[in-house]
């Protein structure tokens, strides 16, 4: 079974997100793996462990630092890693989906996993567009996948805690919300060992599309006010509150 995981490298929000002009200041932000992709890598490896096969992880190298992410995926059980040398930190999901589909075309994939969405654009487009380009069915918001023969049982959770079960014939594209088990931990020594021995296949980006959208403005939220701490004895505090309420015309 050929299992493919399409991943996305996105700006980290562990730090304050730096903004310059009408976009993220890509030079002063770290990139991390999209958290839903962590789930889809785990789900892919679980499927491989259940039915056999190979897991190929493929992603667009946005800033030349994707290797670390691919090494981590290999340490967690993926077998092959492919990076598309995009070198464009601003490549949108339409562009990435096109590049990914061109790279995946030759892999004769039986099942393709993608994170259901990513926090940098929140449009959830990679999975559906991959399915469209590759002419496969797509199912998103998935919380578990079990493969048997040439079909898969897929669970999906709706709002309000309602679950649904689907039988889908392969090949297909799955948008993973959560893996059936929490993503495993890859010990650093293993990741480092992989980093020394693994080869990452490089693919040039091919195809050109655009979302047709242009960002007009990007800015951190404006602070509209702050809490004022009133200090003193309870009488003083009470007096100040009365005064405040009066000054605002509320009393």
């Amino acid at each position, binding site marked *: 079974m050929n299992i493919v995981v399409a991943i996305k490298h996105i700006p980290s929000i*562990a*730090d304050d997100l730096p903004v310059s002009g009408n976009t993220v200041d890509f030079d002063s932000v770290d990139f991390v793996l999209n958290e839903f992709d962590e789930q889809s890598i785990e789900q892919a490896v679980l499927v491989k462990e259940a039915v056999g096969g190979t897991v190929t992880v493929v992603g667009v190298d946005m800033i030349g630092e994707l290797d670390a992410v691919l090494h981590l995926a290999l340490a967690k059980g993926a077998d092959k890693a492919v990076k598309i040398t995009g070198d464009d930190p601003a490549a949108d999901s339409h562009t990435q989906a096109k590049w990914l589909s061109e790279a995946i075309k030759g892999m004769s994939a039986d099942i393709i996993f993608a994170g259901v969405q990513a926090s940098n654009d929140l449009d959830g487009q990679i999975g559906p567009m991959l399915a469209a380009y590759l002419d496969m069915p797509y199912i998103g918001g998935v919380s578990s996948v079990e493969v048997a023969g040439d079909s898969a049982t897929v669970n999906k959770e709706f709002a309000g805690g309602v679950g649904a079960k689907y039988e889908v014939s392969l090949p297909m594209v799955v948008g993973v919300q959560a893996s059936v088990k929490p993503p495993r931990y890859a*010990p650093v*020594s293993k990741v480092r060992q992989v980093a020394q021995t693994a080869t990452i296949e490089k693919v040039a980006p091919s195809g050109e599309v655009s979302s047709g959208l242009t960002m007009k403005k990007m800015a951190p939220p404006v*602070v509209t006010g702050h809490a004022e701490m009133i200090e003193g004895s309870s009488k003083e505090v009470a007096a100040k509150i009365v005064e405040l309420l009066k000054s605002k015309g509320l009393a």
Partner: protein
Amino acid sequence: MLTLVEKIIFILLAITAAGFTFHGFKVIIDSIRKGRPAPELKDVPGSLVKAAIAVLFQQTIFKARKVLSAIHMGLFFGLITYAVVNLVDVLEGLVPGFELVYGGKHLPNAPTGLINAFNLIADVMSGFLLIAIIVFLVRRFILKDKALEYRDNVLLNPKVKAGGQARDSLTVGVFVIMHVGARLMSQAYRLDAGADPFMPIASFLNSMFGASEVGVHVAWWISLGWVMFIIPYLSRSKHTHFFMSPINLGLAKQNPRGQLDPAIPLKVIEGQKFDPGAKQIYDLAWTRVMDAYACVQCNRCQDVCPMNFAEGAPLSPSALEVNKRYLLKEATFGSHADRLLLPLTETVISPEAVWSCTTCYACVRVCPVGNEPMADIVDIRRRMLIDGYEIDSGVQNALQSLATNGNWMSKGKRLRGRWAKEMEFPVKNATEEPVEYLWFVGDTASFDERVIPNTKMVARLFNQGGLDFGIMYQNESNSGNDVRRVGEEGLFEQLVEQNMAAFGKAQFKQIVTTDPHSFNTLKNEYPQFGGKFEVKHYTVTLLKLIEEGKLTIKNKLSNYKVTFHDPCYLGRYNGGFTAPRKLLELLGVEFVEMPRNCENSFCCGAGGGQIWMGKVAPGERPAENRIKEALTTFEVGRIANPTYQKTQLFIVTCPKDMIMYSDAVKTTGNEGKIEVRDIIQLVAEAVGVEEPKVAEAVPSPA
């Protein structure tokens, strides 16, 4: 004395016993040798001599249970005496006419004085031995001391569960009574001329039973016949302790307490490749395989274990050693060699117990025979991580964040120095300009909103004291102390490399840390990675500033009554007991010591990665127990003086303690009775540093 037939029987018996004993010890030594190489031991003869002296004076057992230790001392001296007594008794049996009663009056040219002294010692020691062994038997079988038992949720070898240890104790206990009793009787029966003043007990028995030639023979055989059985038995029981504990003590850990053994032995053996940590028993260093044979299962370690204390946690360091010995015994003396291949998590310690350890070192510190159950636990963790064992989600999140962000709080690297940028004076960046003191702030003190006010206070006092200091801002990574103790050796090495690169960019004379955990690894483990620095804890630096007059105490804090909690990694690990106490003395507070202090301090429960755990064992937590201990300590003074009106403070010198104990005060419902403060808050109050109100009152938009 013995007839020819008796002599032949005795010699045959002795040869058989010697054979079984030799075999027993050969099996033990062979199994110890199967362990992995241990860190190199220096001056082995010297440390064996030191251990022998410690054993002779019974120094190591008195760290706990003083009364029982005194009785153990009686037992020990009694048995040492009896080694000589038995030799003399054999001579009495084999050499015709050799008899020592009445100062050896039947012997030509006998040194009467010496013989009388020997008789007196042997006689009195027999009494001590009988008393000591009876006390121990009563303690175990009649009083059923809880300290000798294990909680139900602790993994125990089925044979131990079925009472194997108790049977062992009973066998040896009965042996000692029979052996010593029979020996006394054999001497009593020899006294055909009435009492010998140098043998009071034997004389008393003689007054009851008289003298008897047949009695001498029967009693002699009971006394020494038993020995022929018991000596080989010892090598197959927990009483290997008699022989192995002095050796184990002599070969105990020599490296600093705060330096863990490497995950893979440093010693390279041709054709042997080691995986990190321990899965099976022989993955442990040979010195720690030997621990099992030295342990007599006194459970002193269990008494002091903060996690054995917490009812819900299934950890007992002594159960670990007991299980190790039973596993080895069943494999080497029994027919269950296959069990040696089972994971240690099935045979000696449950996975839940492995992950409950706080690595506080209390078990290793208190062990009279130099055992290191904590080191085994860390080795087991190391292999579990490599083998992909599913770990606690909280720990996993922390490790993942440490790998990507260099801190366990999922905060961006650049946020590490944010508190410093909010200060009213510039805090130097040590990686950009030279400083005298490089302040290694640590994760909790840098990021945790509850602790940052204290961090700022340290900065203000350093500044006020004219200390030339700087921090490394985003270049600092977590020191890795707790990462290593969680078993993530690879991540630890990565963090060390990151910090070493940062230190390489900086110019400084010494390092000062806030966190005792960082202090420990920087001081004791970084040198192995080339990082040889002078490392100080901030309590030492503060004390120096005050003693040199750079900070002046303006207000004595006599309105406070305080007690002090020694953090494991400052106190027990690194002996940093005096600086905080000296500071408190200079501040003029009323200081009371909790019963568990200094070396015997009780862990807060946060170390060894416990603070990251998502799941916490039910029942009272160690920190809660500690707060109660502090309140009881205060209460003693209050009863003596009921008009007492001082504010009661629980003083800490570790950012993790600040969090753990502030929580514990709330969860035990003791708010208003006791307040947790970092020592820096008191120093600031006494020295007169005010937090600038304006800067603090407006929280910056996060």
